[in-house]
């Protein structure tokens, strides 16, 4: 299956605004992060990241579906 990963702020400056990732059926958010890390495109230590799947906050163990939009987000700093 294929998902879209989107980036903001400093991650957007480093990786662009989005990329498409092909990943096995049943994969989780954590699997996608590992896949990006293996490709050298993403932080290995993702402890401070937050994840949103289709605009909802999710934990790393959440399973992905085809065409999902996964946002990988650094700590927020609005206000």
């Amino acid at each position, binding site marked *: 299956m294929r998902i879209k990963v989107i980036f903001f702020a400093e991650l957007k400056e480093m990786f662009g605004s989005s990329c498409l990732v092909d990943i096995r059926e049943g994969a989780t958010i954590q699997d996608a992060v590992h896949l990006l890390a293996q490709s050298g495109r993403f932080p290995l230590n993702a402890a401070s990241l937050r994840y949103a799947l289709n605009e909802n906050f999710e934990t790393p163990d959440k399973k992905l579906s085809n065409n999902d939009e996964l946002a990988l987000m650094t700590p927020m*700093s609005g206000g």
Partner: protein
Amino acid sequence: MITDQPIDLVEFFSRPFDPSCGAAASFVGMVRNHDHGCRVKSLHYDCYRSMAEKVLQVLADQARSQWAVDEIRIVHRVGHLEIGEAAVAISVGSAHRAEAFEACRFLIEQIKKTVPIWKKEVFEDGTSEWVSCMRSGTSVSWR
């Protein structure tokens, strides 16, 4: 609401509240010219806009369920902001003042932590930095 246009504070605060409101508590977050001893020249806000709108709505719903408030108005600006410009404005109307103050405080604290908006400080020496990523010690490490 998220906007890339300047926030018109006069219009924002002069809109009448529901007649049931006896109190309105308001907050404005502005761009200041310094941070951690560095001279700040301007700010740039990036935003996951569609999600930010949804999270703002969730926060307003949470405030309504927690306090007896009648009206909640929130606007957050994104894009390039100069010193002194309003970045966020909140106004909460309620029958009595305690609920309005508490809900307003709750909203700004939650907005800073949970709405997908990020600010970048541009310093007078020409450097810039995304807030909360490096200096606050919550940095992401990169391979």
